[in-house]
């Protein structure tokens, strides 16, 4: 799965997510990616999220919208992302990762899996990582 979230110079927010799915999936299986609120969500008033990971568990907690709900309650992009991933782990034993932005341009790349390739560009600076803590 691959994805992107962005805030432009006018403060508008968008997300996109794309996937081939899950290795050796059953024919006809559709995961979280095309499901609004699960594979991604964007709202100029709150922020945007693109998700990756175990699709069935992401759908059970509607992970993207859950993280934005956490942000609506006042959590930072980082805390909201971690809270969403923690709930997915505790309630449905799911692992995955998310990228999150808010309208102010704060961003986070968080994951509960062993690794997630990510990169962020802001203020002419490129940040990137693959393992936890990078």
């Amino acid at each position, binding site marked *: 799965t691959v994805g992107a979230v962005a805030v432009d110079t006018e403060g508008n927010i968008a997300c996109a997510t794309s996937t081939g799915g899950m290795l050796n999936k059953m024919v006809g299986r559709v995961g979280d990616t095309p499901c*609004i609120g699960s594979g991604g969500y964007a709202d100029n008033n709150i922020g945007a999220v693109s998700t990756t990971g175990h699709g069935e568990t992401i759908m059970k907690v509607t992970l993207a919208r859950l993280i934005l709900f956490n942000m609506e309650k006042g959590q930072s992009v980082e805390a909201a992302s971690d809270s969403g991933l923690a709930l997915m782990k505790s309630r449905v034993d799911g*692992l995955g*990762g998310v990228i999150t932005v808010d309208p102010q341009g704060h961003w986070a790349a968080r994951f509960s899996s062993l690794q997630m390739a990510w*990169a962020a560009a802001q203020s002419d600076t490129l940040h990137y990582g693959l393992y936890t803590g990078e």
Partner: protein
Amino acid sequence: MLPVVVVHGGAGFVPRQRSELSVSGVCSAAGSAYGILKGGGSSMDAVVNAVTLLENNPAFNAGIGSVLNVRGDIEMDALVMDGKTLASGAVSAVRNIANPTQLARLVMEKTSHACLTAEGASQFARAMGIPEVPVESLITDYSRMRWQKNLAADANPVECQMGKMG
């Protein structure tokens, strides 16, 4: 407003020999999308640009290099959403399209629907003038190797997907 773009290349396992390809791929996609934002482009243009580049990069399992289903075939899904209007578009189980994200954007912009699937999505793509590509052009040696390895380990399609991340 300081523009920002963040991209990911998936939470699945990346073997060490492919880690550099993954990191360079996400950096390249983020850099390209950031250039669009700096030039005054929209956030939607930026995310579609970034994901299109990742779909075209065989290091990732979307677009070219998609993981294969139990039959060794490709079925891809994609979603876009515009935070200004809450407009969204999605496609699922598409096979002959190089860039499902661009097709999802057309679903958002040209239809009143949220998601088109399988043959319906293909018909819509043809109506929009999106060129079809052979499925074989989206299958890499690496994805075929993983499919065969997984088939050998688990013949049961339900069991073999347990614990795997898309």
